[in-house]
């Protein structure tokens, strides 16, 4: 590689964490995403807004690699989403937890799963993650007996425990009490500054209907409507 190009790459200019290029998603004849293009800078706190049915969740799932787009490409942390699974975490509407296990058991399982090679000393982190989201790690009740908001907190902890570089959150605050939601926004801000091996820094993309919670802290806002991005308006993509 040419030495100049090399210098440019290692320069601390943040490369985009996610690049979505002319992505469409069709369900039958219904277009949930219509030629969506956007870029999310690494290390940023990005907010995805839009009315119900706009396609926010669909876009997030496309980025996570859970949905294959009908056309278009997604670049993630400089590569294919499927190759970057160990560095991203996704939290959806559904809690993605085993009902019969306690919160700690769930977290321990998922953290081991995300880092199969890790030694056992990493098991301290599920407790930390639970404390971080405001839950008591000593609760032995199975999560099926948690209240809706408590389950959502565990789900958030599940996303954090894998120590991801890119965090995709689909309406993480929807069932949380107001004080809790504010604390979790703070947590997410802190999260971005956790030490990280790679360059670039940690990135957060969240969708929410409570914009007032994140309006002060958002680095960028993307607004969708009926499957298209309306803000920022596409220049000439």
């Amino acid at each position, binding site marked *: 590689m040419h030495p100049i190009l090399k210098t440019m790459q290692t320069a601390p200019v943040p490369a985009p964490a996610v690049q979505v290029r002319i992505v469409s998603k069709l369900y039958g004849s219904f277009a949930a995403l219509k030629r969506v293009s956007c870029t999310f800078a690494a290390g940023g706190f990005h907010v995805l807004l839009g009315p119900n049915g706009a396609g926010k969740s669909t876009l997030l799932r496309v980025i996570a690699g859970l949905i294959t787009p009908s056309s278009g490409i997604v670049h993630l942390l400089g590569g294919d989403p499927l190759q970057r699974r160990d560095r991203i975490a996704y939290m959806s509407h*559904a809690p993605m*937890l085993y*009902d019969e296990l306690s919160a700690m058991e769930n977290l321990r399982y998922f953290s081991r*799963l995300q880092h199969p090679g890790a030694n056992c000393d990493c098991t301290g982190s599920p407790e930390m993650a639970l404390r971080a989201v405001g839950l008591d790690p000593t609760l032995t009740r199975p999560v099926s007996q948690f209240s809706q908001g408590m389950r959502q907190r565990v789900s958030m902890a599940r996303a954090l425990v894998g120590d991801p570089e890119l965090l995709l959150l689909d309406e993480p605050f929807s069932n949380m009490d107001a004080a809790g939601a504010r604390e979790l926004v703070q947590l997410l801000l802190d999260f971005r500054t956790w030490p990280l091996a790679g360059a670039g820094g940690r990135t957060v993309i969240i969708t929410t209907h409570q914009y007032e919670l994140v309006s002060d802290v958002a680095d960028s806002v993307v607004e969708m409507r009926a499957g298209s991005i309306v803000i920022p308006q596409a220049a000439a993509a």
Partner: protein
Amino acid sequence: MIYLRTVWLHLRKDLRLEWRSRDAIAGMLFFTLLVTVVFAMAFDPTGFPTLARQMSGGLLWVGLLFAATTALNISWERERRNQVLDAHRMSASPASALFLGKALANLIFVSVIELALAPVFAVFYNLHPLGEVRWLLLILPLGTWAIVVNGTFFAALGLNSRNRELMLPAALFPISIPALLGVVQATTGVITGDFEPQLWIRMLLGFDVIFTTACILLFPTVLHAE
């Protein structure tokens, strides 16, 4: 090594879930007892000992097939609930480890059933095997694995509604038939003493190897098929 550790992680999780929905063992035991009784009721084996001997291989395996089907459905339904499956699809660890872990867990469950079933079966059917009983030590695990590995795989196929058409009997049916046939024939051979089961055992072994390989290779595709 890491791969094996992941398999063990999944296996332990499945065992723990099963254990949590406590009394599972008691429930299974009772369940198999019932299956035996229902079959016996329907056929009156003490009345027709020869017929009973001829039928019992088939009865045993159809009963186990039924028990296994139930266990398999339960075990995947758990992953589907709350969309945990999405978490697996997102995870960096190999998909086939999930499959193997689950198949092993199901193997353990069904084996426990078999151990409990054997004496009850013998008493209620008034059975005295006429062939070499020690072959059963080979036939039972091989046959169980054949049922379980295919069952786990095909139950997973049905997980996404998009794939459900694939799970239609037309697809699943011809695939499981040879294994079931082999194991039933081998068992009948042992019980009646009419013929040697070796040929069928060899066939079963081949079947197990081929299908385990195929399932492990294809499972990632199934899991990630949108």
